[in-house]
């Protein structure tokens, strides 16, 4: 089935959750690390994406806890989310491989 490409923020959030459940601020920091500091999600963007991913059944709430009298909610990937992330990662990898192969053929610009 042909699906629309995933937005980068959604991809990075799912990637952050692939290693285990995380709370909102943990996701922001992890995404920053995964992207080499290039992407720093703002809270509004994060929660818009989390709500959408949850409605699409790709993530779910694992647990809640109170830390320093603040609510922390931990999110994790669902089975569908894991499959969708794997599918998107394979698609991106195939595109990147094609680009690198062609660049290499045209004179070795590959770093």
């Amino acid at each position, binding site marked *: 089935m042909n699906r629309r490409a*995933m937005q980068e923020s959604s991809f990075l959030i799912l990637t952050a959750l692939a290693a285990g459940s995380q709370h909102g601020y943990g996701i922001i920091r992890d995404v920053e690390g995964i992207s080499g500091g290039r992407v720093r999600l703002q809270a509004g963007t994060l929660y818009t994406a989390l709500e959408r991913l949850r409605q699409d059944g790709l993530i779910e709430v694992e647990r809640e806890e109170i830390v320093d009298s603040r609510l922390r909610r931990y999110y994790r990937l669902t089975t569908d989310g894991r499959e969708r992330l794997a599918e998107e990662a394979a698609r991106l990898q195939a595109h990147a491989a094609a680009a690198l192969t062609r660049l290499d053929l045209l004179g070795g610009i590959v770093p």
Partner: protein
Amino acid sequence: MTDLQSLERGYRRLLKLYPVWFRKEHEEEMIGVLMAGAAVGSRRPGLVESLDLLRGAAAMQLRPRTATSRGVAAAARFLYLASFLQLLSLLSSFLTIASVRATVLALNPAFSAAQWHSLMVSQVEPSRIAAPVVAFLWAFLAWTLGRSMRWTNIAFAAVFGLFTLGLLSALGQGGAIYATADIVVDGLEWIAGFLALALIVRDATRGETLEAPAGAVG
């Protein structure tokens, strides 16, 4: 009031713009994230995060509240587009009025200043007053489409019918010759409305069951 209390109050003020259901679900959690990410000594939300929260609030206010079919979700997007085009049409009306008058005078040299005044009062000014109302109606109908309100389809058909009559009337009075830019924008708006109507009718006749938009990640 301490810096932290003042900062938290600023965040809560911005979060008030989100829908009630979203705030019930996420406000306390978001406050925790916002406070954890705030620069030391901040007394109020920064510009970038404030704009991001405003954008997030708008996205949450506009997105379908209930699960909708893909057709209805697409129809809502076409109606938001129609709303935007209506505002563009209003802007176009102000920007092109001089050239419209020049065209009218070129084609009708005997057209008097009194006749022009009468045209402005009877047609141009009412359409300018109506434009924001129509833009609001399109956006409101798009918003209600995502909330499965039963009267929406009837209201939409009525507004679309009135808009079509208005467009036909403008065409009948030579709008395509005198005010080409305005008519082009209105025509695009009509197409957006028609596509929305077609999608709604298609779903209704198919009796499509409501489902969450699959594969709509992104």
